[in-house]
């Protein structure tokens, strides 16, 4: 770990301004991912801006009947909130499917969205990785790739985004609220938060330098059966091979997003037009552009079967 300086931010705008002006600055909240990466010297921030004290830890109702989740609301608290459990069950279910109790107790809403990939080649500084060291190449392509992406990937990177929570937020059409260095705020649809790798896999989000997530807003409840099914080799504490977040309405229409298959929560709205035709049709739309490796080809079929199980469960 490299030596670094540390300060506690006094306000979101202050945090943002400092992050933009101090070279090598990073925000730290729960630290469940950043500290691991710092120990491996994959992340080498020169300065840490601690945002834990900014009071962004409330869950409030919005005027239009939705919920505004502070960036620092811990995963455990968000999953347990009665309003979330009642009206956004897919989110609560996704949260408790992630990590472990200990990690969820400290992991934050914004930090969960911004966690980095778990591609093993990203985690080994000896190996080429375009995400870790732009231009060095991708050693995962042609390597061990069972856990890695099948869709939305590129010639430069086949890493996945590991979050469960983000998949549920995507299916809920959440909005990410931020403050920028000048103090201006903006709202980013969650679909536009994460970027596909293309030839710049190190650029992972649409956030500007210093831009701080302050909250995630959930639109007013849409009802329906809200399910999250995470498939993994062991029963707990494992990243998804495939996960399905679904909201299924009584008339059979609904929404679906996939986790574990792509560099971002994977949702193709056009595919949802086929909801009434069943999992095969929807998955065909979702994964039409899939380019799996030999190691992870099974994910395509697994996604279809998992969605079929979810739809069956939604039908009761």
């Amino acid at each position, binding site marked *: 770990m490299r*030596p670094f300086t540390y300060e506690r931010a006094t306000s979101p705008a202050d945090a943002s301004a400092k992050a933009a002006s101090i070279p090598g600055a990073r925000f730290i909240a729960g630290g469940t991912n950043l500290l691991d990466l710092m120990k491996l010297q994959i992340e080498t921030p020169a300065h840490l801006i601690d945002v834990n004290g900014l009071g962004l830890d409330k869950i409030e109702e919005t005027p239009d009947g939705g919920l505004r989740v502070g960036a620092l609301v811990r995963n455990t608290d968000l999953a347990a909130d009665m309003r979330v459990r009642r009206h956004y069950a897919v989110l609560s279910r996704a949260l408790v499917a992630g990590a472990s109790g200990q990690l969820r107790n400290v992991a934050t809403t914004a930090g969960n969205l911004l966690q980095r990939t778990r591609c093993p080649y990203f985690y080994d500084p000896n190996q080429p990785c375009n995400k870790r060291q732009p231009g060095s190449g991708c050693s995962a392509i042609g390597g061990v790739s069972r856990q890695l992406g099948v869709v939305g990937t590129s010639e430069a990177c086949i890493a996945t985004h590991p979050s469960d929570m983000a998949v549920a937020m995507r299916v809920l059409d959440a909005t990410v609220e931020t403050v920028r260095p000048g103090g201006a705020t903006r709202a980013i649809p969650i679909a536009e938060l994460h970027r596909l790798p293309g030839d710049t896999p190190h650029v992972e989000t649409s956030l500007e330098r210093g831009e701080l997530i302050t909250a995630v807003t959930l639109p007013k409840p849409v009802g329906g059966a809200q399910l999250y099914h995470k498939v993994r080799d062991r*029963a707990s504490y494992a990243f998804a*091979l495939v996960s399905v977040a679904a909201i299924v309405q009584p008339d059979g229409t609904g929404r679906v997003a996939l986790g574990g298959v792509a560099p971002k929560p994977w949702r193709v709205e056009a595919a949802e037009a086929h909801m009434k035709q069943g999992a095969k049709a929807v998955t065909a739309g979702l994964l039409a552009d899939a380019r799996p490796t030999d190691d992870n080809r099974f994910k395509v079929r*697994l996604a279809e079967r998992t969605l079929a199980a979810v739809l069956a469960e939604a039908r009761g």
Partner: protein
Amino acid sequence: MKFDTPAAANPIDQLKVVGKATDRIDGPLKTTGTAPYAYERHDVVANQAHGFILGSAIAKGRISRMDIAAAKVAPGVIAVVTAENAGTLGKGKWNTAALLGGPEIQHYHQAVALVVAETFEQARDAAGLIKVDYQAEAGAYDLAAARNGATVAKGEPDSTVGDFNGAYTAAPVQLDATYTTPDQGHAMMEPHATIAAWNGDKLTLWTANQMINWGVKDVSQTLNIPEENIRLISPYIGGGFGGKLFVRSDALMAALGAKVAGRPVKVALTRPLMFNNTTHRPATIQRIRIGATREGRITAIGHESWSGDLPGGKPETAVQQTRLLYAGANRLTAMRLAVLDLPEGNAMRAPGEAPGLMALEVAMDEMAEKLGMDPIQFRILNDTQEDPEKPGRPYSQRQLTECLRQGAERFGWAKRDPKPASVREGRWLVGMGMAAGFRNNLVTKSAARVRLDGQGMVTVETDMTDIGTGTYTIIAQTAAETMGVPLDKVAVRLGDSNFPVSCGSGGQWGANNSTAGVYAACMKLRQSVARKLGFNAAEPHFADGHVSSGGHTVPLAQAAKDGDLVAEDQIEYGDLDKKYQQSTFAGHFVEVAVDSATGEIRLRRMLAVCAAGRILNPKSARSQVIGAMTMGAGAALMEELAVDKRRGFFVNHDLAGYEVPVHADIPHQEVVFLDEVDPISSPMKAKGVGELGICGVGAAVANAVYNATGVRVRDYPVTLDKVLDHLPEMT
């Protein structure tokens, strides 16, 4: 004490302390975090500096240039050790590759440098500043590709009995199947860790090592210093599983670092280094052929295994159990060893049998199905009471059939539908599987010293280790039983090379041999006590803290009123292990549920019925077996060191990537020990259980998955992607 005839009645048979379910005497230290593990021994020597090991970035080749200038001047750095300034190093008997690489690199993450600094963070940061230029060379990393070039390993000839080929060809029912098991990592909680301190030419290592005396010898050989100048201290070990049988780079680099820095140095391997820097269980390819009569009698059994290792390494002895487990007049086993440039392969919990039974016991399940027989009946029909390679050489005890029968009864085997994929509970496909468990009992000499003081306290000293297994407790029980004192009148001191040389911990030989050594020393102490008290008559009686003979009873402590009485002895074995085959047996039973949509495999119930001689402490023995069953479940369902066959390393080198079971994976576990004493094995009449518990579990799981789904997976681990394409269509 020479043990060369079967044990007669002896003080252990009283079973006042031995054989009772007993809490660990070291439990309070463990649960309060006060048991001192190697890296935490801040108090043993002042002025400790921190070392950080840099591992090689390539798997095979040479270092062409190494620039340590920036590291040397980095903040806090005291010294940098590389092959350049380490002096001439030898290699330990138990090491295959050099512990310090350079200029030649033999495997990925082989240590190439140690940075010593005032703090751990400074050492780690400076290690990142070392620039190494490598000349990579092509290596062999794919066992399947190297299989055809594999050769017979030194000292591991084929075993043949009768005419295997003829009998197999003539057999009316045949099975010829090939199975694979992957490389696996020990993944114990405590990393390899050592604090090294020099005092003149004398070296002390506070380390985590299962085999203290092997360690002394290998440190001596590696550093070219006399054994008497080396002290190893390892009283608590946070899991070993074979990964700490040997001196590893933490110990060597700490010793070298302390020498160069001129002050004590502590080194722990980081989690990523543990997988590629140390040893692992090697992958295997196993071909099994079984021929049988239509009635199910095995007439031919053949087991061939291919594994790989670095040059000079050894094969995984996966055919071992097949020489002994089932009857059959015509037999063949063979091992072939390929040269691979992956990290060094070596022992991991039940080497040989653990992966061997993962193949053999699936083959037996497949054969039973071909024969239309119940798999338990098939095994019982081919049970034997003698060494099948050496007719006339009996087993000391062999209750395999009883294990299987009791297991079947307790598990409700009769309710199993032999037709695969026929039991469904909602979304879940449910199946049962079983396998035989088998692991040899190894006898090896083991010494101890016991001391009686004026307060009647008995102190045992031996260099035996407790790797989390419960050794402290069974040794205390043995001394308490033999000396006739309560458990709290015994103190046990372990893991110090100043103590008499024990068998050490490995191969499930620790419990029987180390307690037998303690028993021998206690029997010698009893003689001293009797002499001191003037009891010349027949053997006095030691009970309740007193000694009685000829109507006199005096407190035991009285024998030491003029000074401590000390006795030292060792157990040594004759040829009973040649005359008798000594092994432990189990029946493993597993119920699984497989998600009919996703193929996710979840265990529901596990049962092991074990026959392993006298069970010294049923509580810690049960803990050993449930831990081993858990490890067996991991091997069956998830554990695999994934090889990058281009770059030659295990890619998933952390505990996020190398998955081992978590609590949610392990359901109800039940362990039954058959009432058995084995007077052939030792005066303790005990054997081992710590490895028996893993032997056969993987196959029982795979067989249960087959029963649940009808999918026969022959390549471990049995993961959902291997069954997915064969699951029922979804509507």
